[in-house]
């Protein structure tokens, strides 16, 4: 499928607006998602992510703007668009009063599968998502992770070319989250396009080919992960000397060689300095060795999405994350590639 739709837009959203009363939840969102990619919509709680996804998925009528899914206008041909999408909502959109297999059977039948075919498809999906043992139990006894997996399984019955995932890992424990990520990556390998929303920087970093940062109903930044990171500036050099007593001397050398101001961190003997020119680092290391200073640690850190967020929205994610008290996530200190040199 990837080849067939290569280079085609899976989603083209133009000037989407949705107001609830006085509040403009979505205020002029433009999005373009290429087929066969994972697109991340990143933003804090209440930024308008869910409202946007609901408009893209024909669940909500936009006040203004247009949505096209594989070229089909969502307002004019909603029935066609619905044949091309799968939606997994933020709150599991499965039937609580039924069992897992009954849920999948009913959705399969609704999608036009025959009785035998529906049965086969349901057990195939239950197998794939590791829900076979729990197939006949009522969903009331399902854990959050199991519910999410069932929800995603239900979205895949018709093998839709475009899948919407609204905060697919919110509230999941780290292990289940990693499993969910693998599932999402596998989906894209089989040719699907995925649009996911998340409030977690590392999730967007891990999964998405392109990211739109959304805040107060507007797209405030858009691009590949690397582009976004580059937009906030240069990488930084982290150094730690073995003997904290030599800190002051080391700092002077850094400032002399790199011609930048180095900041001493709270941790003893550790420096951070902006690294404009990687070539200079060699000079710095030689100078440090000549002065007889021994290094304990050396690393280069690229800018994090956290910084992108701060730079584009003017406020950090942490402040927003606190509002969502029920979410247990430690991901805000995004683990972005630390590459050791030499």
């Amino acid at each position, binding site marked *: 499928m990837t080849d067939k739709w290569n280079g085609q837009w899976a989603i083209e959203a133009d000037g989407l607006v949705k107001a609830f009363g006085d509040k403009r939840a979505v205020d002029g969102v433009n999005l373009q998602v290429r087929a066969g990619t994972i697109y991340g919509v990143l933003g804090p709680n209440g930024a308008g992510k869910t409202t946007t996804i609901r408009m893209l998925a024909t669940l909500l009528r936009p006040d203004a703007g247009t949505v096209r899914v594989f070229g089909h206008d969502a307002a004019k041909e909603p029935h066609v668009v619905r044949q091309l999408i799968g939606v997994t909502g933020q709150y599991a959109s*499965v039937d609580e*009063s039924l069992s897992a297999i009954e849920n999948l059977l*009913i959705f399969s039948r609704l999608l036009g599968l025959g009785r035998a075919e529906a049965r086969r498809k349901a057990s195939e999906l239950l197998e794939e998502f590791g829900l076979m043992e729990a197939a006949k139990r009522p969903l009331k006894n399902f854990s959050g992770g199991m519910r999410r997996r069932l929800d995603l399984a239900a979205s895949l019955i018709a093998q839709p070319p475009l899948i919407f995932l609204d905060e697919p890992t919110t509230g999941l424990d780290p292990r289940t989250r990693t499993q969910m990520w693998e599932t999402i990556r596998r989906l894209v390998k089989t040719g699907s396009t995925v649009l996911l929303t998340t409030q977690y920087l590392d999730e967007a970093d891990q999964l998405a080919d392109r990211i739109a940062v959304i805040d107060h109903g507007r797209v405030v930044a858009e691009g590949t992960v690397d582009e976004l990171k580059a937009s906030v500036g240069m990488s930084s050099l982290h150094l730690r000397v073995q003997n904290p007593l030599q800190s002051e001397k080391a700092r002077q050398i850094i400032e002399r060689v790199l011609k930048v101001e180095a900041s001493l961190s709270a941790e003893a003997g550790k420096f951070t300095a902006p690294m404009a020119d990687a070539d200079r680092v060699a000079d710095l290391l030689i100078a440090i060795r000549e002065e007889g200073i021994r290094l304990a640690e050396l690393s280069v850190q690229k800018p994090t999405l956290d910084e992108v967020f701060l730079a584009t929205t003017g406020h950090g994610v942490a402040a927003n994350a606190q509002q969502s008290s029920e979410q247990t996530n430690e991901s805000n200190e995004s683990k972005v590639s630390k590459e050791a040199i030499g």
Partner: protein
Amino acid sequence: MKHAAIHSGSGRALKKYASFGQSVRNSLTMAYRGLLKLKRTPEQLFDVTIQPIIFTLMFTYIFGGAISGNVLDYLPVIIPGILVQTVITSSVVTGVQLREDMDKGVFDRFKSLPIARIAPLAGALLADTIRYTIATVLTFTMGYIMGYRPEGGLEHVALAALLVIACSWAISWIFAFFGVIARTASSVQGISMLILFPLTFVSNAFVPVETMPNWLNWFASINPVSHLVNAVRELANTGTIGADFAISLIGAAVIVAIFAPLTVKAYMRKT
């Protein structure tokens, strides 16, 4: 420009609208879902099992002597009346449950699926006919136990039962409409009861309308519930199909013709 590529390339035949056949199939699947839910939560059938038993006993013994002189003579009057009242009352639950159901996440999925828009509504209403059937059977059974022997015979009683079930299904579209437009399930209950009480009590269901003051008498005789009760009495007690039978069916058809499109429209606007 690339539409053609999708049609042919992906092997997906994209349909612009749900066909009539698909609408029927989708509705039946949704009705199956309703039945599965009833199987899982049988306490939902409380009202249609307990109410016919309690009400039939209660009303028959309270009013029997006063209205018809004795209980046995009152039975042919009260059983069709209480039947209609019970079954119509239980159709309110359809609206309430629809409201509760629509607030759940699963309705988001129904909305995002390429299925007929009417299916989630029609399916729920169809599944609820099982409730009306239970209430009908229990009411006639209670009557039989108390000594009611309908002279129309079993086949006319069965026809009367079908008529009541069909009309209640039609009326449940009104409550489904409230279910879709109301904000909470309890407000659906409130509005519905407000309509239901005058409609079922200001009728010939329990008492002869002749004793009512003129204006009330006038309302009771044009009340559709009275016509339905009359139709059931004629069928069960004398085995005749009269004008009231036709009026009831026409009334039911009119209700569906008005409220089914209204409800679907309101439901789609909510999305």
